[in-house]
């Protein structure tokens, strides 16, 4: 009994002391620890980690302001070894329990862990988001967007306005969970509201490729990310050309770019704590004569291919879409120029990260394209759409985003459609 008590007590104490020992080893003994034992371990999953100096707020004042407590909390979190494995395994255990429950019900989708908003679709081996609720409020705010757009379009009759709606999983009919919820807000609902703008302003066009089947959807969208891939963007662009009467003769789908040895995971994998590890394949766009300038130039214009944000031990790469098409800087304000455009016009492209893949295609038609990425994070540019139009001298204005982005504009930018 005595020996057993001693062993149990020792194991218990060593377990509790582990993170503190690792922290001391790293910060005081300056040991170069393997990344599995440091905060770096889970950065590919969480997107980064906050480095803190524990002594900075080690004072009565720091304690009273609860800053020291926050710092210590962060330090402990950063010192948990194998954090990524812990996070993924804990979610996997919960998912096993959920899958066991689902054996009785046979639903086509279930949460990736208890309380998760991400769902796993076993038939497609893909992740999606729980379909959006609050149909009424989203319809109303999208109507406000339409009102503003109609007013702006009518005030600028010499300019063309385009709306491109991406069929993101939380509003798509291709998400099997779409028919498992009540009061859902769908891409169809959004498009129905946006159609009023087309009816009431002759210079407004609308494009939306909508999907009904998961197989079709996951050809054009990543299986673990909310974004479309290059094929999804290209399909929408081809539809846009038809609607807009553009005549771009570039061959954007002549070749497929493969990324051997790279498996990717996207935002759903990160938030759902479930790795899908899909292979990346993208269409090779014809970017002859196209250059981009801005706070962060996307790697697509670099001849050597993409620069990856993380190549961890498991071989997973998060946010491949952003890395490849380039919106890692969420408030990027890019200028894309084209030395061989099909028109001599300028374009303004705004809304959300679905535009990342799209603006390389739109830029093929224009001499100069101003890209505002991402509108919901844009706090620096002109505050009104008219201001943006005047500032850029754009002849064509593109909104490219998912249905929720259209519903969000007037709440994040209440003044967006104000007229001078």
């Amino acid at each position: 009994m005595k020996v057993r008590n001693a062993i149990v007590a020792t194991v218990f104490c060593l377990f509790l002391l582990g993170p503190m020992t690792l922290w001391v080893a790293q910060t005081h003994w300056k040991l170069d620890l393997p990344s599995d034992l440091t905060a770096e371990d889970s950065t590919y999953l969480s997107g980064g980690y906050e480095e803190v100096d524990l002594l900075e707020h080690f004072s009565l004042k720091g304690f009273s302001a609860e800053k020291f407590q926050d710092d210590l909390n962060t330090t402990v979190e950063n010192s948990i070894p194998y954090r990524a494995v812990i996070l993924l395994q804990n979610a996997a255990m919960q998912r096993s329990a959920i899958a066991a429950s689902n054996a009785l019900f046979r639903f086509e989708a279930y949460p990736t862990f208890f309380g998760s908003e991400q769902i796993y679709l076993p038939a497609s081996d893909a992740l999606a988001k729980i379909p959006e609720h609050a149909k009424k409020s989203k319809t109303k705010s999208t109507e406000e967007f339409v009102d503003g757009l109609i007013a702006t379009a009518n005030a600028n009759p010499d300019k063309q306005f385009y709306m491109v709606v991406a069929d993101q999983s939380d509003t798509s009919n291709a998400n099997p969970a779409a028919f498992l919820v009540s009061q859902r807000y769908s891409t169809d609902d959004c498009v129905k509201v946006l159609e009023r703008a087309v009816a009431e302003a002759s210079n407004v066009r609308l494009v939306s490729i909508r999907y009904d089947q998961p197989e079709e959807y996951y050809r054009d969208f990543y299986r673990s990310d909310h974004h479309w891939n290059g094929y999804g963007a290209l399909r929408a662009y081809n539809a846009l050309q038809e609607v807009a009467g553009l005549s771009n003769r570039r061959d954007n789908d002549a070749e497929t770019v493969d990324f051997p040895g790279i498996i990717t995971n996207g935002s759903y994998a990160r938030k759902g704590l479930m790795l899908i590890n899909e292979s990346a394949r993208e269409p090779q766009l014809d970017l002859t004569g196209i250059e981009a300038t801005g706070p962060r130039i996307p790697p697509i214009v670099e001849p050597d291919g993409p620069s990856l944000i993380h190549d961890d031990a498991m071989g997973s790469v998060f946010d491949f879409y952003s890395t490849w098409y380039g919106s890692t800087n969420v408030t990027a304000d890019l200028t894309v120029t084209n030395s061989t455009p099909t028109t001599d016009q300028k374009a303004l492209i705004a809304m959300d990260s679905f535009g990342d893949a799209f603006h390389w295609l739109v830029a093929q038609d224009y001499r100069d394209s101003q890209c505002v990425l991402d509108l919901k994070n844009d706090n620096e540019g002109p505050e009104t759409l008219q201001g943006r139009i005047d500032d850029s001298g754009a002849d064509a204005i593109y909104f490219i985003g998912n249905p929720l982005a259209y519903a969000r504009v007037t709440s994040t930018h209440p003044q967006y459609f104000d007229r001078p």
Partner: protein
Amino acid sequence: MVFSSSVFLFAFLPAFLAVYFLMPKRAAKNIVLLAFSLLFYAWGEPVYVWLMVFSIGFNWAFGFAISKSATPPLRKFLLVADLFLNLLILGFYKYQGFLAENVNRAIGEEFIAELNLALPIGISFFTLQAITYVVDVYRGQVKAQKNPLYLGMYIAMFPQLVAGPIVRYSDIEAEIDNRRATLAGFAQGLRLFCVGLGKKVLLANTAGTLADSLLPREAAEIGFVGCFSGVAAYTFQIYFDFSGYSDMAIGLGKMMGFDYPRNFNYPYTSKSATEFWRRWHMSLGGFFRDYVYIPLGGNRVSTPRFVLNTMIVWGLTGIWHGAAWNFVLWGLYWGVLILLEKFFIMKVLDRLPGFVSHIWCAVLFFFGWLLFAVTGLSNVAEWFCAMFGAYGFTGTSTLWELQSWSYVSLIPIFIVGSLPWAPWLRKKLQAWAEGDPRRAVMAAPAKGNEAVPPCQAELAAPAASPARARAVLAVNIAVDVALLAVLVLSAMSVVSSSYNPFIYFQF
């Protein structure tokens, strides 16, 4: 700070244990315990630590003054003054908003300003602990503590500060100066700590995910399935949460050599409301019995007075749990049930098969938690109607989106976790190993107020054979391995609960 947090498990607790056990003398250990307790208390709300220090100071002073006073009226005056001050502080911080809201609503204008005070952590617990000290000093049941630091250690002691059990000064009076921390006690305490951590993190938090998603919603939205599963999830959540926290507190106490009283004894196995309250939050029931009910006259009074005393106690029990009418109603609900059982129902229950009594009690605590968990009396009424199908099977939602179905595989685990199979198996094992067939047959769930049993099978007599002794050893080793696995799994869950992907990557 809470026990189920990374900073407690991996910084506070190891630092405390290291410093505490490095201290050679009892006095130094007491001071270390006080210092860490105040640090623990100040962690989330630094400013309120002064309230704690004030409470320690005046309770020590009043206790000391009462013990030195030989004049009964003066002693009584000092006691009343101390109680008044304790209850004033508790009332101000906990009930000011409730009082203001109700008075202002009654007179139709803002007569009392609502101060929106943050509730000092553990104030309901440490106030009652302080009261037991001063009252027991007044009654002459304990000696006044001369050292204010030691009294401070008792009032602020971090293991039971936040969620009990309510430890009376008399429970640990001797241990303040003369306790022995042994390896066996330390190991027993940490085993109990692992059990409690597992209950809190693995069971309560999981059940809580469902309860938290359903309880704030309207009955019409979620229908029978949502309301039923919301209350059922809360039923498990509150038991595992509260009893888990108590187990951790008792375990931490044991590691230092303190023997705290047991707080939960498998309440969901009760056969009546009366039994339920002998098994649920036993230290609170004991407090109200000894410091309110008996001073009011107990049951040695006329029937109308007995009924009044009972309802006063249960009204106070209700409002102690929270400043809202829900809690008052919940307390009175139990008071009425206990009276009904005493005068009428118990006679019937005693004649019925045991399973009927279990179902009776399960229905009682289930609807009791409905009153407790759902905020707003009109919401409670709607939820009650939903339980009987007023809003259909799933309300305006679908079965899938309620998510209750995803917890189905955990129901057996929750039920097994609420039952006393572990002590039952342990007694069976001990009886078998000792070759005592009579005890093996009679082995049954423990009842009544007793110390928390150890997590290991300990033989009181020599084993009947070496093979049986080896079997007990193997089971004990397996239990230790399982408990350490629970510790690891709980830690994984604690780490995961803090996962918060950078917003930068969310788009």
